[in-house]
């Protein structure tokens, strides 16, 4: 079925801008563009906006609670008169040229009548199917009908068609029975919406690179190896362990923790570039674990300590002085299980005068994988006709217009353009808003 959300804003109506990606960059871009008086259509692939920042426990270097500062912005987005949310949706096509682009957005069937769902969660409680929870980075299970996380915006459940027994085998139907709002609709189909937009903003962010391709770092080989993002979830009050730091193999509280930087990044064989944020988030996590386990000691294996932002260097010094964080300039060669399934053995060069190969045991190991352009962003860029750089991030080649892609009217902000931290993403997102205003002024 097809719907039309107005043709490219005639004189009477506000000009429209499509923002792709509902992470902090997309949210900020949407808010500023909307505040400038344009109509924003924010397209997010997952059921809720929030993106990666919603998964973080705290943010460096102030250790501000991530959700606390993000949540108000998510809600402002939902409440803004000029912003239309298209969650659980994807951009499937773009035609035309600036300033008359026609963007096709696919509203994936969530088998829920959004208007009716109150997000009460009764259905979730009763759903018999348990599946891997993406938001919790696979550390816990969710139901086949689910709310991605407690602060989700919009607060509407979604049925995961792949796993829903009613949809796959026409059995069950419990959720429909318990839903008093009558919001369940197993017959719902994907919907395609065409939006006449003057400009498009790409803010598709990042994914973690697949560490299983790098067994030397112990991923999948040792139970007690987690990714940095998994650790964020473990540390989060609303996370899978309720904020208790425990290791997978035996549920023990680790006392000796290691972080390995540049896993797959700054690596000719994997990803050549630096992911920009790992040095700082590892430092942050090393500080945070102390707040959970007072007598824990952390070691960070790094190549260069890139603490270049405001208050970053001081943050690292504080980690060393007050939180007993040990920094070792070395790239561990091998990581293997210690005894049985538990713990990890890390083998590394000590460097310096009497450089020798040491093997040290840790209770738990955190890998900081290369951060890569998010899944589908490459295809999306091709769809848009925007060129990619060698590292597969979307190119912004003109210094004069630092947020413009190679395609006129298609702008980029945040990690989609190159690795950067939250403040830089936010600044770029606001910058995009100014660029949109410039372009639409020019187009008249």
């Amino acid at each position: 079925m097809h719907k039309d959300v107005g043709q490219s804003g005639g004189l009477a109506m506000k000009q429209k801008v499509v923002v792709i990606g509902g992470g902090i960059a997309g949210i900020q871009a949407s808010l500023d563009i909307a505040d400038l008086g344009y109509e924003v259509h924010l397209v997010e692939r997952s059921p809720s906006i929030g993106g990666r920042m919603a998964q973080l426990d705290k943010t460096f270097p102030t250790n501000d609670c991530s959700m606390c500062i993000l949540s108000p912005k998510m809600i402002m987005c939902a409440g803004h008169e000029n912003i239309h949310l298209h969650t659980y949706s994807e951009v499937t096509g773009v035609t035309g040229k600036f300033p008359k682009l026609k963007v096709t957005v696919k509203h994936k069937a969530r088998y829920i009548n959004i208007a009716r769902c109150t997000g009460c969660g009764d259905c979730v409680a009763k759903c018999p199917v348990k599946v891997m929870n993406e938001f919790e980075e696979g550390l816990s299970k969710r139901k086949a009908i689910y709310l991605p996380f407690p602060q989700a915006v919009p607060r509407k459940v979604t049925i995961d068609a792949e796993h829903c027994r009613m949809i796959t085998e026409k059995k069950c139907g419990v959720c429909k029975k318990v839903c008093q709002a009558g919001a369940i609709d197993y017959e719902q189909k994907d919907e395609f919406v065409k939006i006449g937009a003057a400009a498009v903003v790409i803010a598709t962010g990042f994914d973690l690179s697949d560490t299983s391709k790098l067994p030397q770092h112990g991923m999948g080989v040792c139970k007690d190896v987690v990714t940095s993002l998994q650790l964020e979830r473990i540390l989060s009050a609303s996370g899978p362990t309720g904020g208790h730091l425990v290791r997978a193999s035996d549920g023990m509280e680790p006392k000796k923790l290691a972080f390995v930087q540049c896993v797959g990044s700054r690596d000719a064989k994997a990803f050549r570039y630096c992911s920009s944020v790992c040095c700082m988030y590892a430092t942050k996590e090393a500080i945070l674990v102390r707040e959970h386990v007072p007598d824990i000691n952390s070691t960070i294996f790094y190549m260069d300590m890139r603490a270049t932002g405001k208050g970053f260097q001081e943050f690292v010094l504080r980690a060393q002085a007050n939180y007993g964080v040990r920094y070792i300039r070395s790239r561990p060669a091998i990581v293997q299980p210690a005894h049985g399934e538990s713990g990890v053995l890390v083998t590394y060069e000590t460097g310096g005068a009497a450089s020798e190969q040491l093997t040290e045991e840790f209770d738990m190991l955190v890998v900081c994988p290369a951060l890569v352009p998010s899944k589908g962003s490459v295809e999306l860029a091709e769809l848009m006709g925007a060129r990619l750089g060698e590292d597969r991030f979307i190119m912004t080649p003109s210094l004069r217009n630092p947020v413009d892609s190679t395609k006129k009217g298609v702008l980029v902000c945040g990690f989609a353009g190159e690795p950067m931290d939250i403040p830089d993403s936010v600044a770029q997102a606001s910058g995009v808003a100014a660029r949109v205003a410039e372009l639409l002024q020019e187009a008249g």
Partner: protein
Amino acid sequence: MARTGVFICHCGHNIASIVAVEEVVKFARTLPGVVVADHNLYSCSEEGLSAIKTSIKQNNLDRVVVAACTPRTHEPLFRKICEEAGINKYLFEFVNIREHCSWIHAKEPGPATEKAKRLVAMGVSKAALLEPQAETESSVTPTAVVIGGGLAGLTAAASLVAQDIDTHLVEQEGEIGGHLSRVSVLAPEFDESRKLLDSLMSGLAGSEKAHIHLRSKLKDVHGFVGNFEVTIDEHGKELKIPAGAILVATGAQEFQPVGEYGFGELQGTITQLDLEKMLSEGKAPNRTVFIQCVGSRQPGREYCSRICCNTSLKNALRILDLNPKAAVTIIHRDIMSYGTAWEELYRRASERGVRFLRYALANPTKVTRKDGSLLVEVYDETLAERINVEADVVVLATPMVSRENSGDVSKMLKVPRDKYGFFLEAHVKLRPVEFATDGVFICGSARWPSSAKEVMCQALAAAAKAAIPIKRGKVIIEAITAWADPDKCAACGNCVTACPYEAVEIATQDGKQIAKVNDAQCKGCGACVAACPNDAMQQRGFTTRQLGAMIDSLVKNALEAEQ
């Protein structure tokens, strides 16, 4: 009697792991006027907010107290919810039990819980006396003033003009460009800065919206968002500019490492900008050594200046372009080539044979002059050995430091700076280009040393933020202004002398002399309130009865507990 609802936030573990939230809820239920008290995992989540909304409606509350984090970030959100639920947003009171309680008493859950109770009680007692308020709207002057004509200011101004906004660019030097005109090419893509400068200028030159003031200094700033009056001294003449928004783009300056590594004494020791000059004249030394972190990442100036490593990488490559036989060594502590482009630059430098030696703060490098050339003695941490490098030129990569005059700008605009003198944004994470003061914005290296691209992105961001009130054409004035109770006022004029904004005057009202406050001029500081001997002067949202009630509440709950 007020019908007050109290909502206590767990903030996940942030509050609940220290403060016994349920206990505080029980206590709140016993407080006068409280008809309902509840708690949420995250009051600010859509779940928490809708819970509050529903409760307001179900219990027809006329006062709302939320005990959570700080009003400085979350008050607008909760006020909005009150409005949506149909009660005046000024009937909302915020109690901070996170920053001011759980986070700072992490080791004393018991006392922290007791304190949280007292704070909640204080909030409830104030809330009971809150009154509905109406906000006043004020117009916005459709003009922006950009202070500083470097890359940041220029980019911001160009964007504002391109958005059809009347823009004044104030530059203290005789020409536009700042550092841009002292650097010939810009990393990482080796763009010619001249071209960039021209292209930015062309955006301004053509437009009647652009007003460039050279040899001009900021002299004075009055007013508030939408209605500033910026006074500048344009080579001798004073000029008053009415403006809706102000952008600070005053940049930073290169630290001069006087006395370090023989700078100023040993011929051939120069700074990055000196080298830029040489290279722009096509001169490329045969043997160059860069020493990184000169005057930074050390006690007293702990910070990393972010751009020095990348500037050295850029210039190393330029030397090799001009003089392929040249020997270039970079002595560093960490190479800060973050991201894709800078790492690429690092890779290229290594491939082109630039030699990288790593030193530690503990083993300082020495520079001496030995028969005609400079001798650099460095202890390389990687090889763990002392290495001597001969050089014609030693480039001391020094940090960007805040401009001497940033203090004056900060005082005139009433915006804060950090301990290094860089401007302090409203929130390091989510408000990077805003100041806490509405209508004043910050971009570029005046905030923090940044690469050309970063500077330009921030400048665009600041331009967007400044454009928002101007495009809207109005700002709402918060209802925290003062008023005088005519029955009590004795027209003694204390308030008139106390007001920093000449917002109060003695006027005649039905034959009686009394103080009158001009809402438009009143900034809600409350100086007049404290000056009034007879409690006639009051500030909306901070009346003496409301604050008095908070004190009484503390007395009651703290002291009666003691006995």
